[in-house]
């Protein structure tokens, strides 16, 4: 029995290699996922991969007429290992396309490697402005957002709600600073004033000292950028300190996305801005949600959408070049011209390859981030520093 099994395997392997040799054109496209599969962002990495695979499956396992083969590297959200990890995909596995990642610091190293090697890179989350700013390149795309986008939209919302003086608080790292700067730009343009910018070292979650500072300064509003466990703790501590009763807390959607179960009552009624929301109730989003829930027995989140759209963008590019990834210029032009039919609502890709998209205003109701309007329509990142 075992012997027969072994023989069958051998025969299959021989056939496979024959097929491969006979028709090189039909070789699979190698897609390398470089995502966090362990650590704080593990759930995000899995959602992105799930979303990506869902779209590929919907297309019958093929994009641009070629079958897709996946390889995976766990980036551990560790910038120190990022260059080694991305080179594993580029040099060892010689992938055609890289999908990654969540952490901005890691994504920057990936962008640099992709720029040098010319490998196509689609960033399915990391919001570092620089990826589609100074680091922009013809072969680098983003299916998610820039940190500037939801922050800028929130700055306008906060100013329009009549707040004059605001305090910002975030971790002292690039993503936090970019987000705060985006908020500040819009808030001050619309007549507001940032009276204090508080920071604490990443990933410190001991907020009590800074909450006391906020209480002493008595601003009209607070804008904060935190994610994951830090977001949960900050929102809870903010409510625990009683500040939510007198000073509204705003932030980009990551403050309340995937964290509501843990935040409980502390987050109720909070307003955040993001390019996705619960309850969009469009046929496109409903279909996506149903398909995702069926495939993975999970509700999709914004990360799943970004993964799904990364696959859509790849599909558009590959279709245009008929599966020939070496035609980089045509690949890029096709994506730049496309309208991507995303569950979040259709969006286009800017010259710098960042989505031009609606930013929703969302309100926390129970366990969902219910959409309550569009905070900024067709918002494009200014792509500062991009020469392309």
């Amino acid at each position: 029995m075992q012997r027969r099994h072994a023989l069958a395997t051998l025969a299959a392997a021989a056939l496979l290699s024959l097929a491969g040799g006979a028709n090189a054109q039909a070789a699979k496209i190698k897609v390398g996922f470089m995502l966090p599969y362990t650590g704080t962002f593990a759930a995000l990495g899995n959602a992105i991969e799930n979303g990506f695979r869902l779209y590929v499956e919907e297309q019958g396992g093929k994009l641009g007429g070629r079958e897709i083969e996946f390889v995976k590297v766990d980036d551990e959200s560790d910038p120190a290992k990022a260059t080694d990890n991305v080179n594993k995909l580029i040099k060892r596995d010689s992938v055609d396309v890289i999908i990654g990642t969540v952490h901005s610091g890691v994504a920057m190293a990936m962008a640099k490697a992709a720029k040098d090697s010319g490998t196509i890179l689609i960033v399915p989350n990391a919001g570092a402005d620089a990826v589609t700013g100074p680091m922009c390149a013809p072969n680098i795309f983003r299916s998610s957002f820039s940190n500037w986008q939801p922050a800028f939209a929130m700055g306008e919302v906060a100013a329009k709600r009549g707040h004059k003086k605001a305090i910002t608080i975030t971790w002292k790292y690039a993503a936090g600073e970019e987000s705060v700067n985006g908020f500040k730009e819009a808030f001050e343009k619309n007549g507001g004033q940032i009276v204090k910018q508080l920071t604490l070292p990443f990933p410190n979650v001991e907020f009590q000292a800074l909450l006391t500072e906020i209480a002493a300064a008595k601003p009209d509003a607070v804008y904060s950028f935190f994610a994951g466990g830090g977001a949960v703790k900050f929102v809870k501590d903010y409510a625990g300190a009683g500040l939510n009763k007198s000073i509204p807390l705003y932030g980009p959607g990551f403050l309340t996305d995937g964290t509501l179960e843990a935040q409980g009552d502390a987050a109720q009624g909070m307003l955040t801005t993001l390019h996705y929301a619960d309850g969009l109730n469009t046929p496109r989003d409903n279909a996506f949600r149903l398909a995702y829930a069926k495939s993975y027995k999970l509700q999709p989140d914004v990360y799943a959408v970004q993964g799904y759209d990364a696959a859509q963008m790849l599909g558009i590019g590959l279709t245009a070049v008929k599966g020939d990834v070496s035609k980089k210029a045509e690949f890029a032009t096709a994506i730049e011209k496309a309208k991507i039919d995303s569950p979040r609502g259709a969006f286009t890709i800017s010259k710098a390859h960042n989505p031009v998209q609606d930013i929703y205003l969302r309100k926390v109701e129970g366990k969902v981030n219910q959409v309550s309007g569009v905070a900024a329509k067709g918002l494009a990142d200014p792509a500062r520093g991009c020469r392309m």
Partner: protein
Amino acid sequence: MDLATFLIQCLNAVQYGLLLFLVASGLTLIFGIMGVINLAHGSFYMIGAYMAYALAPLVERSVGGGFFVTLLVGIPLAVLLGYVLEWLFFSYLYERDHLQQVLMTYGLILVFEELRSILLGDEVHGVAPPALLAGSIPLGDLMTYPVYRLFISAVCIAVAAGMYFVIARTRLGMRVRAGASNREMVQALGLNIRLLYRIVFAVGVALAALAGMIAAPVSSVYPGMGGQVLIICFVVVVIGGIGSVRGALLAALLVGFVDTFGKVFFPEAAGVLVYVLMAAILLWKPEGLFKAA
């Protein structure tokens, strides 16, 4: 900064310092007294926090108790875990050099993180504080202070007092100290040092898990939470003087103050101030604030 704000900040500092002590207390035993470099200490803390999250619904269903019953169930489980771990792994490490201890305990971190991921997933979860302590007291005109945080401080003080008493004033503590300074001699005197160490280790694990369970309602539970407390725990134990409970308490409070006021006055340098403090103290007193009791 006016006086009221200053006093609230002092309260924050003390409260954070006490929490640090609670988290580091188990490490004082395992690293400080037994001399094992235990990188897995953060994992024990994480296990405690996840117990507070995962055991609560089970306890609720089977015995009908809340947070405190969960604590009562969780602590014996942690002692048991520590006992078994010492028996299976750590008992082989005492004679080995530090590098091997680092390797094995680092391996344990990976194993525990993966087990956590398989068993409970990678989501962030909240743990509700017990209803009895869910309120908050007003502080100044805007702020309130959660009662639960004061409860944490009270637990920390109780643990500190208990540890100091057991180690410095009881026969068991005397044997532990004797074993720490000369293992062979204690053995020659007819004491079962293996059992003694097994118990001390189990208690150290239980303290870390207790810290995790108590801290869970304020910190929430999330992947990688153990790694965040690990380094600061070593800082506290090293500043305090290896093996000294008094030193660890004082060091934790010191770190609490430096961290709190550092964030307020020197936000640019807040990340390194604690380590500057450690370096300064080690230059001044290379063995830490207190020599082992």
